[in-house]
């Protein structure tokens, strides 16, 4: 069995967001780049499955759409434990474009399980995994918070309001995963970092394709009024303010 994990290169989640002078883009100077948090959890779970599979899972690949600047993030995925990597050498214009590129790049590879994070922490799209499944004509399950493999049978928990459903998909399939799929993201070991340099990272050129959406302008959020402090000796005042001033209770 082979697993593919799709990863996105995103600004660190603690980044303070600044805009460029024309407000047509985010100012990315000095930004630290990371593996999109949900993708990192997906990779962690894939590695756990491989280790528990007694050799049945033979390979974990990662794939990312991005220019050369994304390579440190891809190398980090290799250092965490992926066996090989593919980088599609283009900027991911939108999810439709990126999913099309990945579908084309892996269509002859016969992955049994494809894992994607449910959202990207930068532009907050939640489209990539579902689009990839549709381009590849594979079943997909989204909001996956637990993933078990027994023999050839996959069982996942899909979160629903107030609980979860256990879903059994036909393989191959795409799982779009969220919090809970792995306890904590794995950190690369020193040995992993050394080995990552030797692992194959294949660069493929993009295919001509359309993007269906594009960013044209950005703006910062509205500034927030100062916090009104309530005397801890008189918390009833808070109830009064919520009732009379904020009018929400």
């Amino acid at each position, binding site marked *: 069995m082979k697993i593919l994990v799709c990863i996105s290169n995103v*600004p660190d*989640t*603690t980044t303070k*967001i600044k805009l460029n002078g024309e407000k047509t883009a*985010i100012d990315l100077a000095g930004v630290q780049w990371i593996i999109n*948090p949900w993708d990192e959890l997906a990779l962690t779970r894939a590695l756990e499955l491989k280790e528990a599979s007694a050799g049945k899972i033979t390979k974990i690949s990662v794939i990312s759409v991005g220019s050369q600047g994304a390579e440190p993030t891809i190398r980090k995925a290799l250092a965490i434990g992926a066996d090989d990597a593919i980088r599609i050498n283009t900027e991911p214009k*939108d999810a*439709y474009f990126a*999913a099309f590129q990945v579908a084309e790049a892996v269509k002859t590879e016969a992955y049994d399980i494809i894992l994607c994070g*449910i*959202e990207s*922490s*930068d532009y*907050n*799209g*939640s*489209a990539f995994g*579902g689009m990839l499944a*549709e381009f590849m004509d594979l*079943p*997909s*399950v989204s*909001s996956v918070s637990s993933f078990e493999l027994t023999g050839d049978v996959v*069982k996942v928990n899909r*979160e*629903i*309001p107030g609980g*979860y*459903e*256990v*879903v*059994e*998909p*036909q393989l191959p*399939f795409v799982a*779009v995963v969220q*919090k809970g799929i792995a306890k904590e993201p794995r950190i690369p070991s020193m040995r992993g970092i050394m080995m990552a340099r030797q692992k194959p990272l294949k660069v493929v050129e993009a295919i001509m394709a359309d*993007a*269906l*959406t*594009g*960013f*044209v302008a*950005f*703006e*910062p*959020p509205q500034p*927030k009024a100062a*916090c*009104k*402090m*309530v005397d*801890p000796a008189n*918390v*009833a005042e*808070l*109830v009064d303010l919520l*009732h009379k001033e904020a009018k*929400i*209770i």
Partner: protein
Amino acid sequence: MSVLIYTENFDGKFKKSTFETVSYGAEIARQMGTTAIALSMGNVADDDLKTLGNYGASKVLHFNDARFANLDNSAFATAIAQAVEKEGANVVIMSGSNIAKAVAPRVSVKLKAGLVFAVSGLPKKLSPFTVPKKVFHGKAFADVVFNSAIKILSIAQNSFGVKEHLQNAAIEAFDAKVDDSAFKTKVTSVEKSTGKIILTDAEVIVSGGRGMKSPENWKPLEELAGILGAATACSRPVSDEGWRPHSEHVGQTGKIIAPNLYIACGISGAIQHLAGVSSSKVIVAINSDKEAPIFSAADYGIIGDAQKILPELITAFRKFKSEN
């Protein structure tokens, strides 16, 4: 030309988020000078379907097929795409729920329709079709332009609100052609707590962080939530420690929430936490550290130990509830 609104039901009933989605779609239809058509799939009573007219839907397509009792992303997307084609819809509206995240991307590829998630308001322009959306979980907003004939919008919860606009919605049976072979996922069991307020539906949320000090200390927090009819939530360290389930984690990598009132107890307010709660209408912060970043995001603050403040808040809210 028309606007098609996909309306989710939960065991046959609509929720506020469904009505918000219809309200939003109906307003776009008015701006475009066209009609708003709701699509409902599954077993929903006619009386319930009719209520979609209260929010501006002039027609309800009802696709009632027993095979659609459980979500299968591919089968659902096939049916929705057929409805879009049948009605010649050029704008499709969905909620921001997990179902939209599961299904909308597949519809997008089927129809070669641009798709934007986390839409935060009405279109800025109809030509070229441009919508505002949240990026970086509300740390910034962006305008996105569509380059496709059909546009799919998934709206951020509580970004528009429920708006009544009475229409007498005609109910029309709709029969999508979906082969049995399209269903490639099977639901084998369901675990669901009943009677609990669902975090993403809640109007009020009481949340605890590391400042709560131990899982046993959640009792007063749960009591306060009970008085306010609130859901309980927690910060990431709390769910990582296993004090509370992952499903309660709010923040950037957990749930993104938008209640009317968010009460944060012993939460310092890391930037990732604020990203998940900043869409709340009113934020109350209780923290012993007056420098805690949560106070920069809060509307009202109390400096003090949540363990001491919570019992007093319980008394104060209980008194208020008995008088109002």
